[in-house]
């Protein structure tokens, strides 16, 4: 190291780096700093022994403490499940009609239900529960219910689902395809009549012609005045809400080749407490109905 450069002012060696005549001194590091550095190495070795560290082909070394983030989550989940156990038991036991009177339990159910909803329901019904009209996923925020809007009705729907083969108790709606049964003119006429039921723009003459066809073909499910029938899941045709669109084209398309909503049964997958919780949440979204006796 013959080419060492010494700074004349301080007597300290320079690194040889030079920026516009300013040279960098190679001042010795404080020794405690080095000890601190060695300390971190020792810490690292201990850490590697105690905790998961080296990546292997399948997984990683587990460390002698056996700690893992998944284990933490499992423990936390277990802890929460344990602390919620009492509430869940009460929720399963409570009379659904009286749930709202029990404020604490109701709040618990709604909050738990919100989380269940986001996990299992939002894929179709949307995170805000507004549904997707283009796909026929119903809006759960309004006051129109295909199968009933009391909490008991909602619990049944969630538990057994709709039009699925997995649950014999599933709700089942059926509408025939009228393409071929009715002529094109007849389908257009019925559509005009249907639109007249909710005061939408229509051809009065065609609607009058369609009226008889409606009574013959549709009224058995949708009712003479188009109010629908919740027992068979027939939608109300006289209100402002259209599951699959209220335009002339949309209604005609539904007449020719109806699409039917399908929902899986959640009773076994979620368990009674979660079914009730998510139902309480949906019931509280703004359209929940009270039993008629109230």
């Amino acid at each position, binding site marked *: *190291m013959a080419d*060492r450069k010494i700074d004349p*002012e301080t007597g*300290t*060696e320079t690194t040889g780096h030079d920026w516009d005549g300013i040279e960098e001194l*190679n*001042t*010795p*590091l*404080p*020794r*405690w*700093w*080095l*000890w601190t550095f*060695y300390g971190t190495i020792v810490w690292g070795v201990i850490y590697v022994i105690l905790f998961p560290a080296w990546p292997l082909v399948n997984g990683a070394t587990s460390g002698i403490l056996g700690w893992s983030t998944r284990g933490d989550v499992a423990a936390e989940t277990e802890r929460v499940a344990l602390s919620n156990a009492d509430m869940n038991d009460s929720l399963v036991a409570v009379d659904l009609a009286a749930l*709202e009177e029990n404020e604490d339990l109701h709040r618990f159910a709604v909050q738990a239900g919100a989380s269940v909803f986001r996990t299992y329901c939002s894929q179709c019904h*949307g*995170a*805000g529960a*507004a549904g997707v009209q283009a796909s026929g996923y119903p*809006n759960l*925020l*309004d*006051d*129109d219910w295909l199968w009933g809007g009391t909490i008991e009705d909602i619990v049944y729907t969630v538990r057994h689902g709709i039009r699925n083969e997995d649950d014999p108790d599933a709700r089942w709606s059926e509408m025939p395809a009228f393409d071929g049964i009715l002529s094109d003119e007849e389908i257009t006429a019925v559509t005009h009549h249907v639109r007249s039921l909710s005061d939408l723009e229509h051809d009065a003459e065609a609607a009058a012609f369609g009226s008889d066809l409606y009574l013959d073909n549709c009224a058995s499910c949708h009712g003479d005045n188009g109010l629908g029938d919740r027992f068979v899941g027939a939608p*109300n045709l006289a*209100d*402002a*809400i259209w599951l699959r669109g209220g335009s002339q084209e949309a209604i005609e398309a539904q007449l020719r080749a109806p699409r039917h909503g399908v929902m899986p049964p959640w009773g076994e997958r979620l368990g009674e407490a979660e079914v009730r919780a998510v139902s309480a949440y949906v019931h*509280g979204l*703004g*359209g929940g109905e009270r039993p008629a006796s109230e």
Partner: protein
Amino acid sequence: MIDIKVSFPWTCETAPMSDAPPLFAAREPIFPRRVRGTFRTLKWAILIVTLGIYYITPWIRWDRGPNLPDQAVLVDLAGRRFYFFWIEIWPHEFYFVAGLLIMAGLGLFLFTSALGRVWCGYACPQTVWSDLFYAVERWIEGDRNARIRLHDATWDARKWRLRLTKWAAWLAIAVATGGAWVFYFADAPTLLVDLITLNAPFVAYATIGVLTATTFVLGGFMREQVCIYMCPWPRIQGAMMDPGTLTVGYRDWRGEPRGKGGIKRRQEAAAEAIGGGEAKARYGAAVEDKDHAAGRTARDGSILGDCIDCNACVAVCPMGIDIREGQQMECITCALCIDACDEVMAKIGRPRGLIDYLALDDRPPSVPGDTADVHPLGTASDDAAPSAAAADWTAQPVWRHIFRLRTIIYTFAWAGIGVGLVVALFIRPEIDLTVAPVRNPTYVTLSDGSIRNAYDIRLRNKHGEERPFHIALRADGILRIELEGEPDLTVDVPANETRLQRVYVTARPQDAAASQERSDLRFWVEDLVSGERAYQDTIFNGRGQE
């Protein structure tokens, strides 16, 4: 040839194998001597006041009524609340804390531009606690010379006894320091009992443990190393000081050439010095006092400056530096060297202030014996007789360095934020209301064709008892308001809590609000007990163009 040299920390003190300098250096121990004087007294006063504030504050009580803590200063982390005497800061009012932090930052700028590193020298916790630890050390182990002897002594019974006593005393201070900290976060008397009976939460013990360790190590062993190697402030301050900033410095034009010359005054030398303008060059034009003008002479007869090279300034320095070498990053401007030098100047009958608070631009235009490498910031030097300009020179008074445009601007900015915070404190609403329109979806069509919007209203009750709040609506058209679960439009908010209330607003199909894309809406909230009202404006979303 590749020259690899492995250096281990334990090899530092042995002679290097080659002529390469060591990569690592051990800390040079520092044994500051006791000193008395103005600045030492000031530092003791600040130490007592700051430590007093730190230790006593959590124990001050403040009655806030039922359900609220009666501790004057309390950071309630679990309740997300900060109590400061009559002020109560909620999380959404954190801008008060941000404002205080900005004021602290600006205050640091202000003090640095006016007085240099006065924070480092007097108020920094590292300085205050190191000072306290040094005092304990001096009390147990003796003053500088005794401590140097003890340091060099072998580890016999006496050394062990002194060291263990000192460490025990430090540890006691450290525990008290860490212990006082946690009292800011919980009711102090309750926590103290819990701590003693081992019922306090683990985090309290852990915090005390960590702060005890840091206080013990940083105050007892790291000391000036913290300032030199760990703290960014010494690096930042260079950008904040200017030549007009007051800082601790050495009047080299007065002190040099230094030397242990004859202290005996010689009238002839004095007369000669006055005649040659020497005294004026050294002390400034204002100095006419014959006493001040008396020169010192070395044995060879040459005239010496006032510095007798006694090293008192070095011996008292807690940073282990020689202030006579000029501005240094290590200097925390604790001013103890001023006290030490003043003491010496008094003994030899010279005016005080050879080392003093001065600004770097406060130097005579040309000074005797000035050379570039002693005065890095000095003006051009020559050994010629002092010029007339030097004889007319007078140092600027201290206040001229403090009241400068720069410091005045800082002061106004600082005070402006302070006034703003106080005003904000007085005009902040008693009712806290936030309205969050639900945007997923923006509106819902109901079966009769009416349009419904949902809003999440958050109401804070800052009082110590439950309060009913009435929620009302004001809009141009007719809109219906409904509160989920509250048919009478009144919400009871529990004491000291925030309540979330879902509100539905509905427009009938024939109303303008239903067909318009957006219309304005105002929520009014009234505290039914105090009658206070607050409002917030928001938007109602309609069908719009379809």
